[in-house]
């Protein structure tokens, strides 16, 4: 019986044969035998500490980045309790009295919250649509240019705005739109029209902001799509041309379908961020002009103003939490939709 238990272990078996004292292998065989059974003592040997030790160097490599993320991304999440507090500086975050859902009630009672949410989603939706269509058209056109030097020149020019900070973009827009000397007003004047107070006329700003957004990002996105187009196997097009397909047919039947995974990912990532506005665009390009808030105030600028100008930390946190939760839900919904349509194109 004892020998049977030792059987799978050649060392123990050899020991049995060479050693006269047969009691020893028996005692040794006991742990060996239980080690064979995965439900008993196998896990301790390959357990938590074992895995930890085995991965210690990789864990050490990951440690600094983990610490940074822990402090700068996860620690602030605990600060979200401020959304449920009536914060005052002297009592601190933990000492301030609870407010329940008071901050949220107050937040949703204001017109600002509603207005900024509408502006954020509506303008971002326009941005996503315009930049997608614009970037794909530009990418398709660039793909048709055969002269390498010309392609490079176009790329450089179109990519340039991507490198320019929103502060400087604010200067550019100011040069175009300021009342007395702005180029646009001078043009209007030259054509006999009246100067426009651009920075106090909210009705123009959805249009202006869309143009600025396109100006800054069309080159960037078109380069991504161009890279995708260049990655498509040339044989598809050769076969299509043999069958007599026109350029437009090739674009409709080959390029766009093969580009769709990339388009899905890009749009999905943008939709996931639809509740988050590009703060620099809305803050700098509008010169943070109060007269424009009805069409340019977005959640991010609203949170910033509530906190830094009005000093209401509780409500600003509540607005931020509302934004983050909406964003998170939206990511899951959009990912779920994509998964329904095409499993491979889902992000997770």
């Amino acid at each position: 019986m004892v020998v049977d238990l030792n059987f799978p272990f050649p060392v123990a078996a050899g020991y049995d044969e060479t050693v006269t004292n047969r009691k020893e292998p028996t005692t040794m065989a006991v742990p060996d035998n239980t080690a064979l059974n995965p439900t008993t003592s196998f896990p301790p040997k390959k357990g938590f500490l074992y895995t930890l030790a085995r991965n210690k160097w990789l864990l050490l490599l990951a440690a600094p980045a983990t610490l940074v993320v822990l402090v700068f991304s996860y620690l602030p999440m605990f600060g979200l309790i401020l959304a449920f507090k009536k914060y005052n500086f002297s009592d601190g975050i933990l000492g301030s009295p609870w407010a329940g859902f008071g901050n949220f009630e107050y937040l949703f009672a204001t017109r600002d919250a509603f207005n900024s949410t509408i502006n954020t989603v509506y303008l971002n939706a326009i941005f996503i649509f315009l930049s997608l269509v614009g970037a794909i058209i530009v990418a398709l056109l660039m793909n048709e240019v055969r002269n390498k030097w010309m392609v490079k020149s176009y790329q450089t020019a179109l990519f340039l705005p991507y490198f320019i900070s929103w502060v400087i973009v604010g200067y550019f827009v100011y040069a175009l739109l300021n009342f007395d000397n702005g180029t646009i007003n001078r043009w209007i004047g030259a054509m006999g029209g009246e100067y426009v107070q651009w920075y106090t006329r909210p009705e123009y700003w959805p249009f202006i902001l869309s143009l600025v957004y396109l100006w800054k990002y069309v080159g960037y996105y078109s380069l991504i799509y161009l890279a995708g187009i260049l990655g498509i196997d040339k044989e598809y097009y050769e076969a299509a041309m043999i069958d007599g397909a026109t350029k437009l047919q090739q674009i409709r039947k080959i390029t766009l379908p093969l580009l769709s995974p990339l388009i899905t990912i890009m749009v999905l990532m943008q939709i996931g961020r639809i509740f988050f506005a590009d703060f620099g665009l809305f803050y700098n390009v509008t010169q943070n002009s109060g007269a424009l808030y009805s069409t340019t105030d977005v959640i991010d600028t609203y949170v910033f103003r509530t906190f830094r100008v009005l000093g209401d930390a509780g409500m600003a946190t509540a607005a931020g939490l509302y934004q983050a939760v909406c964003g998170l839900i939206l990511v899951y919904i959009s990912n779920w939709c994509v998964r329904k349509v095409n499993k491979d194109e889902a992000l997770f």
Partner: protein
Amino acid sequence: MKSYPVWQRAIIHLFLIALAVACIIPLLLVLSASFSDEAAIGKYGYTLLPKAFSTIAYQYILSDPTQIVTAYGITIFVTAVGTIVSLLLSSCMAYVLSRSDFAYRNKFSFFIYFTMLFNGGLVPSYMLVTQVLDLKNSVWALILPYVIVPWFVLLLRTYFADIPESLIESAKLEGAGEFRILFTIILPLSLPAIATVGLFIILMYWNDWYLALLYVDEGKKFPLQYLLYNIMQNLSVIKANPVPGMAVRLPGENTRMAIAVLATGPILFAFVFVQRYFIAGLKVGAIKG
């Protein structure tokens, strides 16, 4: 591929040229204004070419360049230190996440990528930096919050994961530890990736003004972009509420534009030369998602 009739090609080129010009025109307006006489701007507005060429704005700035030189110093320090730290920590993390035999890979991946989906927002981050870490008016407040950007970690991980595992296996058999494998095998093999991500990080730090808006209020600690932001803000405030008999002479619009040119010109010029690395990075992003 079959080439088009001439008129079709002409249309494509005309369209792209129009776009390219539209992208560059605002730069030219600002550049031209910086080389204009203040009076000429008042008379003709912002024009593509200076109506009355003058370098007076630059002379004015360079007669006392302390402010802009200090701001350059802050920006260069933040960008240099930030890029090195960020690239180092991101590469280490990305390498760990690229190792399929790392036992806690999924946990760490989730830990990093979840921050892309959810975050505490402005107020808690502000409280953390100013009250818990006490970094108000410190350059570290301009560096640390951007050290780990999940998207950059993801990009690096994608590159690293392409390196054959057999290479790592054989290095291990030779007795190399994880640190050695990372620094002597993985990183040298991924130089293009490091360069690309590094440039994105440089751009992020160089162009940032948001962290300064939140955490810096001492004038001598302003980075460049925030200095520019302030010049624009102060002017609109002063213009809106003019103080009678104020001794300070306002810098003219040409001076403002000249500061903008001095602050961005060099880096923009440099980026034109390295943009192909950015494009290479975009390609990987495009193909691998």
